[in-house]
């Protein structure tokens, strides 16, 4: 983690709602993802950092500034925080054109500098030529980029994004996920991004802060947090139990061959940038099929020799930790486990269909 630029310690409760408790949150200069299920308080935390909500108690400090301090009676309103904020629905001003929206925050700049700055930002985001359009005349992806342009054109000290891709349809979302990562990296502005999508968190963030029931329960490097959940709460909201670094060996006919340790996996390469080499390989435990080594041929492309390391009961299901040259987790029903006669040390074949192996370009 880089040096801390933002520290937050606060509580916030809406009447009738759950209490949000942010305890010793320290955020570095890279891209930090606030990850949690819906209702975990992610958006409230983000809005408190933006100054759009006032915490009940506590303090928020950014750089050398105090943004909020209950005891000192300090509250910096949003207009004094010099942030860029992109809400989930973008909130583009419906009565202003693209240029009007993007230029709104440049009021302090001399008029002569404003136009080139707007043009440069629109160019950079591939929005050139849309200057005179109204927000309702744009596609979802274009609206998302206009909202980003409006937030970054002022060169804010901190960028806050609330579910930046959630309002988009799935194909657009997958396409923009890679694009957004690229843009955020080029910007180099400290960014806090809220998402409930684990793959998005992996793709976009250096650091992940997990929020559960209104509390920040775990904080660390993205892969670390997801592959080693600090407690059951984190494990429960983690959809992809297996996250391993891998290297793309080749891409052919829309399929990628990835080396994970000594194992080779086949995955769909559709949403993978052509130049991606290092990736996270993500597999849901319920997508892993186990079979006897001598079983007949089957359709899944990935056949991995596996050894059972541990079997843990989890409600009606059994969590099976396997070693296939890398740790792999499978989730089976109990009758299935009994039929296979699962026990520690048993050798099996783990089967995974290629579309269920998700590849996220690796970023550092």
């Amino acid at each position, binding site marked *: 983690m880089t040096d801390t630029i933002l520290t937050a310690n606060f509580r916030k409760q809406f009447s009738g709602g759950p209490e949000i408790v942010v305890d010793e949150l320290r955020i570095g200069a890279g891209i930090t993802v606030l990850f949690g299920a819906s209702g975990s308080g992610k958006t409230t935390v983000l809005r408190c950092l*933006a*100054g*759009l909500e006032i915490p009940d108690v506590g303090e928020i400090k950014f750089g050398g500034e105090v943004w909020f301090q209950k005891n000192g009676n300090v509250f910096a*309103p*949003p*207009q004094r*925080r*010099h*942030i*860029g*904020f992109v*809400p989930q*629905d973008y*909130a583009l*001003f*419906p*009565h202003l054109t693209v240029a009007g929206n993007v230029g*709104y*925050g440049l*009021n*302090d700049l001399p008029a002569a500098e404003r136009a080139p700055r707007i043009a440069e930002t629109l160019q950079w985001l591939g929005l050139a030529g849309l200057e005179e359009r109204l927000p309702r005349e744009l596609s979802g992806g274009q609206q998302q980029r206009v909202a980003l342009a*409006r*937030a970054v054109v*002022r060169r804010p000290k901190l960028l806050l994004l609330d579910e930046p891709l959630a309002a988009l349809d799935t194909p657009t979302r997958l396409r923009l996920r890679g694009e957004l990562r690229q843009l955020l990296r080029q910007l180099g502005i400290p960014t806090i991004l809220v998402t409930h999508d684990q793959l998005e968190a992996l793709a976009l963030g250096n650091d992940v802060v997990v929020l559960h029931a209104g509390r920040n329960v775990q904080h660390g490097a993205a892969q670390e947090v997801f592959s080693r959940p600090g407690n059951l709460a984190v494990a429960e909201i983690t959809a992809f139990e297996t996250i391993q670094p891998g290297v793309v060996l080749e891409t052919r006919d829309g399929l990628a061959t990835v080396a994970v340790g000594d194992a080779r996996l086949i995955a769909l390469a559709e949403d993978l940038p052509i130049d991606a080499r290092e990736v996270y390989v993500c597999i849901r435990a319920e997508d892993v099929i186990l079979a006897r080594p001598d079983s007949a041929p089957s359709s899944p492309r990935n056949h991995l020799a596996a050894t059972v390391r541990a079997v843990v009961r989890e409600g009606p299901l059994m969590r099976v930790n396997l070693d296939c040259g890398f740790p792999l987790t499978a989730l089976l029903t109990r009758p299935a486990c009994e039929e296979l006669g699962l026990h520690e040390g048993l050798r099996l074949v783990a089967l995974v269909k290629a579309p269920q192996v998700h590849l996220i370009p690796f970023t550092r």
Partner: protein
Amino acid sequence: MSGAEWQLVGFSLRMAFASLLLILPFGLALAWCLARKDWRGKALVETLVSLPLVLPPVVTGLVLLQIFGRRGPVGSWLHNTFNCDVVFTWRAVVIALAAMSLPLFVRAARTAFEEVDVKFEQLARTLGAGEWRVFFTITLPLAKRGVLAGTLLAFARALGEFGATIMVAGNIPGRTTTLPVAIYQAVENGEDAHAWMLAGVSAVIAFAAVFVSENLQRRRK
């Protein structure tokens, strides 16, 4: 129409416009405070502003007469400080029209402000805009239709005002007489043709104002 009739219509229009100038800044500020802020005494102010809608207009006129009369609290101050008299002058006409049409304007503007999603105002603040800039570049433009509709309604109401006007401004031909007062006078004098002519003019102006106002409010939805 005769020259005197044209003059009467012109005077009435000028008075209605002047009352709008009085209402707009005050009414917009009040409507915004009612729509966006919570404060002590809000319910009381809401009631007071709406009161002229239901009170007999002559009662409103009587109250204004008390306040702005030479011995009233505001009237005596104006007289002593600026040597300016209100009652039975064109100024009294403007004040009476403003008091009577303010409720219509404030109600329409308040609803229009309430219909503007606060998320746009909040976003403007994150982009560095202070309260004034947010109001004039976001809230007001987005509430434009409703505010304009309210302005037209207030204008139409002002043109038709009779009771309060006659109490504070009286009926001084060429100085305080407005269209409705002139119509009443004409009927009193048995000049039916004259009365109908003026009534026709009133109806045309009122129809146009309400027609445009309704269209503005409908297209908003």
